[in-house]
Structures are given as C-alpha cells and as structure tokens.
C-alpha cells in the first residue's frame, strides 16, 4: 500500500521555448478547456498516489484519537490492554501514512514499517503469554508469526536500492529518454504494418494530435502541449526494416528535437510480438528538460506506458477500451456519461 512514487517537481519553463510549457499567457476559453484535459491524467495519477496515503492516514487517526471508539468499530473487546495496543499501533501508522503523503522518497517510511512489525511481534508475544490464550491457538499463532516482516523488509530494501522507481527512464541534463516494452498478441508483420502508417499513431498516443504522411520517408507531426498549445515538427524515417524496426527523427526546425524507434521481435511461445519503444527528446539550446516533460503534462514514463497499452488494445481488440469513468476524461465516479460528454 505504501509504494507510490513521489511526484517529480518541475521548475518553470524558461528560455526561448518558454511558451511550450510556461502557460503564462492569459487563456482563451478553448485553451482553458484543453489545459484542463491535458492535466487531468496527471491529476488523477497524483490523486491515486495520495489516496493510498490518505486511506492509511484516515484509519490511523481514530486509533490515536479514540481507541475506545475504534475498538468498538473493529469489534475488538474494549479493555485496557486492547486500547493500549490500538493506540500504539495507531500512532505508528499515522506516522507512516503521513510520511508517504509528504515525503519525496518513501523508503525511509517503509523502514518505519519494518520497525513496526518488530513491535507487533513483541505485542503478539505479550498476547500469547496472556492467560486467556488457549494452548492450541498459541501453537498456531506462534507458527504464524515466523514469517514476520519479510515483505516489508524486502520492499524497503528494494526501494532503497532504487528498484521501486519508475523503470526505463533516464533523465539527462540535455534531454529525456524513455524506454518501454509491451507484448502484443499479433504477428510482428501485423504490428509493424500498423505502426508503419504513422497516421495511426494518434489513435493511441494521447499527446499526438495528428500525423500527416508527406512522402516516402517524411511525415509532419503535431502534438498537444499544455495550455492548449501545440508543437509541430517534420520527421523522417532513418531506418526501416519490415517486420523488425522503424526508426525516425525530427528534421531541422522542429519545436522540440526528438527521435524514436520501435522494434518488433517475435515473443517466445507464440505469444505474439514484443514491442520495444525508445523515444528521445532533446531541447533546443537553453531549455531545461522540464519543458519537454511539460509536453506530456505528466510522468513521460507513465504516458508512454499508457500509449503502449492503448496500442495493444487497438491491435488486439480493434479499439481503445473505454470504461464509464474514463470516458469523462477527468476523475469521475463510475457512472455512464451524460449525452454528449464523451471526452475522446
């Protein structure tokens, strides 16, 4: 429950391309709408991470405040010993929940959980010694205790080593690199064929508005940027191996210099095709990486993940799959959309 990643803080955009991510100009009504749309995903993600923290916190709070009340709620007999247990455990969880919500790195707080488990062991030991405990239950409970702390310990160690961080993304000073893979249950030829027609890309790539093919190897790309703006560039295919690989890069004069490749390899055991996408964005002179990140309006890592998932949906089921909640394009209860309110 405690493993959400922290939000990356991004500095304000600066330099010659500040209008890409800056959003300092007054917004017209249409731009305002778009801005709402583009940041909706980001907000919902952040909300989710925090929801887990709040979930923990809201439940920890009553334990400290009114252990008597909580004892009643949880159906635990309200005696002195139980009340103390609840209070001690509650205080600790409160600390942990709070840490998850407020700290940029949660590893330290997970270590807090490990310590907490050690404490529970001690508490349970106390319970086992109590004269109310029946012998057979004591045996069962003692055996059950053996595996204590293992999970928390493992997660804390992983997080400390950085394994809990988002994978496949290296942010350099001079640009941003994203690497993502997914397996699609279609042949490499089919998957290659669909991708090769770049006009298909906006169907599953959220931030792409439009791609026009203007020649054998050339295309024109238009992407959404925050604050209702767009960035555009011409791209050319630099390598093209049917059924295997497509690589492209933007041409001179691009708003954001970028390149990408997608590689298709047969997955073992007739599982279809492993699709491996690499994208690289380099900012023009003087622009910080934050501007590029602003292009996505959220974690680029998550964005590409979502794009690939939608790609798979289109390839395998024929369409991008909608649920009642996702049609609203912003956090919304799972209810059917009202007439005319479908976001996409």
């Amino acid at each position, binding site marked *: *429950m405690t*493993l*959400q990643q922290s939000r990356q803080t991004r500095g304000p955009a600066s330099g010659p391309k500040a209008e890409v991510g800056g959003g300092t100009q007054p917004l017209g009504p249409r731009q305002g709408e778009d801005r709402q749309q583009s940041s909706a995903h980001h907000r919902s993600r952040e909300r*989710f*991470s925090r929801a*887990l923290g709040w*979930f*923990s916190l809201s*439940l*920890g709070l009553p334990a400290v405040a009114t252990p008597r009340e*909580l004892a009643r*709620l*949880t*159906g*635990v007999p309200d005696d002195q010993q*139980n009340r103390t*247990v609840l209070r001690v*455990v*509650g205080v*600790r*969880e409160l600390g942990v*929940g709070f840490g998850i919500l407020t700290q940029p790195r949660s590893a330290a707080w997970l270590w807090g*959980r490990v310590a*907490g488990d050690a404490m*529970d062991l001690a*508490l*349970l030991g106390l*319970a*086992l010694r109590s004269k*109310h405990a029946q012998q*057979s*239950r004591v045996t*069962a*409970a003692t*055996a*059950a*205790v053996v*595996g204590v702390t293992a*999970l928390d310990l493992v997660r804390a160690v992983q997080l400390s080593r950085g394994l809990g961080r988002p994978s496949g993304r290296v942010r350099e000073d001079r640009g941003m690199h994203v690497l993502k893979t997914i397996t699609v*249950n279609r042949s490499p030829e089919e998957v290659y064929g669909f991708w090769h027609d770049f006009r298909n890309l906006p169907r599953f790539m959220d931030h792409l508005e439009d791609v026009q093919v203007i020649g054998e190897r050339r295309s024109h790309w238009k992407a959404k940027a925050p604050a209702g703006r767009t960035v555009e560039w011409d791209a050319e295919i630099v390598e093209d191996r049917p059924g295997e690989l497509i690589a492209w890069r933007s041409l001179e004069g691009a708003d954001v210099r970028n390149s990408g490749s997608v590689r298709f390899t047969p997955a073992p055991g007739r599982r279809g095709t492993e699709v491996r996408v690499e994208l690289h964005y380099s900012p023009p002179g003087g622009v910080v990486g934050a501007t590029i990140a602003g292009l996505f309006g959220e974690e680029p890592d998550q964005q590409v*993940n979502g794009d690939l998932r939608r790609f798979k*949906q289109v390839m*395998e089921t*024929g*369409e991008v*799959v*909608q*649920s*009642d*909640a*996702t*049609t609203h394009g912003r956090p*919304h*209860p*799972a*209810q*059917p959309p*009202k*007439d005319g309110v*479908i976001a996409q």
Partner: protein
Amino acid sequence: MKAITWNGKKSVRVEQVPDPRILNARDAIVKITSTAICGSDLHLYNGFIPTMENGDVLGHEFMGEVVETGSGVANLKVGDRVVVPFPIACGKCWSCQHELYSLCENSNPNAWMAEKLMGHSPAGLFGYSHMLGGYAGGQAEYARVPFADVGPLKVPEGVSDEQVLFLSDIFPTGYMGAEMCDIQPGDVIAVWGCGPVGQFAIASAFLLGAERVIAIDRFPYRLEMARDKAGAETINYEEADVYQGLMEMTGGRGPDACIDAAGMEAHAPGLLNVYDRAKQAVMLETDRPIALREAIMACRNGGTVSVIGIYGGFIDKFPMGSVVNRSLTIKSGQTHVHRYMRPLLERIQKGEIDPSFVITHRMRLDDAPRGYEIFVNKQEACEKIVLKP
C-alpha cells in the same frame, strides 16, 4: 435510470444516473431483470478496497434482456436473455485465449493503478473500484456490457432467472474453488466460510467427486444450510477448535484440500482477532487472513489450499514455513467465469444442481440499502439477496 451507488464506508444510495449507452463497437446494453449483492460488495461497503469514489455504481452479478448492440456484436440480438460474467474480457489477448478471463490484458483502462498495488493488472470488473476499471456496475436498471460478443451467456427458455443468475459469479467461483483442489476419489475437502460462495464450493466439491466436505463458519443458520442443502459436515468455530476438530474428523491427516471462501474480512474469536483487526484498521495489513492461516495449518502434507475468498492487498504473519516444508500447493484467482458458464448451465439443465437454494431474500432495487445492511450484519438469516429493478 435508477442505480445503487457507493457513498463512502457503509453508505449506499439509490440514485438517478444517466442511462448507459454504447461506447465501443463491441458493447451491448442490457435491461437488468435480476441482480444480486455479493460478499465481494461487502468489502467495498466496509471500505477495504481502495480507489472507490462517491457515486460509483455498484454490482457485478446481473442478468437481463439485450436492448441494444454495438456494430461489433454479431452473436446477440435485441430481446436475447443473457447472464453477464463479472470479469470483463476481450477474448483476443493471450490471457483470454488461455481461458484466463479474469486476467484479460485489455479490459482495464486504469491498469496503471492496479500495477502500482499488485505489480501487474488483472481484468476490469463491473462495479468494483477504479483500480479495476471504473466500470459502472449492474445494481441498476440498465448496464453497458463491453465485449458483449465474448461474455454474456444466452439463457434458454425454461430456466428461471433465479436458477441461472449465479452463473455470473458465485456458482463458477465455488466451482473453480473446488476444481483447483484437483479432487481425487476419497478426498476430504474443508471449506472456510458458509456464505453463498462457500455453499457453492461445497456443492461443487461433491459434484467433482469429493468423499466428504467439512464446512466451517459461526452462524448456525449458515452451517445448517451447508448441512441440509449442500450436504456438508460442519464445525462452528466459536464452539470448537477448528484445527483439532478437523484432525479428529480426518484421522489426524488433515483435509486433502482446503478452500478459503471467507476472504479478507475473516473473523476469529480471541486475541488473534484483536491483533488482525487492529492491524487492518490502521492499515498495517490491508487484509485479515485468519481463515487462510488456519486453512494452511490444517491442510494435510502435500495438499492444496484453494483461495477464492478475496484479498485486496497485503497480509501479515503468513505461515510460509508451513507451505514450503509441507509441500503445499496454493491456487487462487478471481474466477475465470466465462470458462464455466456453459458447462455449469448444462448441469443446471440436467437437474444436477439448482443454484437458487442459496437465496433467502428477494427485494426491490430500491431496498438495496437495507439489503446491504442485513447482509453485512448477517441479520434475518440472510444468505443471499436478489434484487429486482
């Protein structure tokens, strides 16, 4: 339309929400004729499943009449009577093609949420949190059914709603629970929990050739149903020690397979209950694995523990040493309902089982809030509630 919505812990409401309509080509709209409240809904009701939002339409066990189909649905027509499986499955991905329908790789548009909690995402489910799709559920007058060319089972004339409604979830769930036990002649199966899922696990264990089934619960009326309707022997865990009881009944071997049909909100008498309730209440563990621990400890050497009770997150004090040192097999899953609907319909038609035996309450959709209350508190000898929109 009218729908039952979630509004925070222990609060459900009858609300007006927009009518569903076709969003994807493979959708159908179903006018619901019967729907039910599930033990899984109680986990939502009690606030133990994260990523619910106020206003979410609940319900995942429903059937009705097709009133509209998308352009991609060729096998159904308006007027067909269908039962809808609770997991949403595309039929085209690797998991679907391997009959692992509750693991469909395409039906959860919020997969990234589930990935954070579980590493990978399972399928989207009707009315079961945003992490599992954000789909409106079937405790309503109408429902949109995605991938309607794959999921819904057409119901023939001559069988009533009440006989086939539970093909949507609990009958296949109990059946899969028993199937995972790989029952051999002479096997003794123990089932924790005599809720509707437990009842179907018991009945299915017999269908699959179990010699004896021992059912465990604490509510006399539920134990009685397990004995009289499903044919089990019973242990009331408030009156007897379960481990000792099972050893006495199995010559000290332990049951050949154990089914956990109690799930994450299991209850225990005594100090262990205090411990798990406290830890769950403050989120040091999200689930109370009381029945599961007991099932593991009781299972015979080399036996199977089949977990169909739902767990949402993390558990504590899991007796892994017992599992490893005694060569136990653990099997689990949200039910791959699509796999079982047709064969179980055949069993119903042949008269091998009438699933309506679990129904104790029939109510109007408007009465759902009261239904949740008596079901969660096990009042009025409530076993299973069917709602009629």
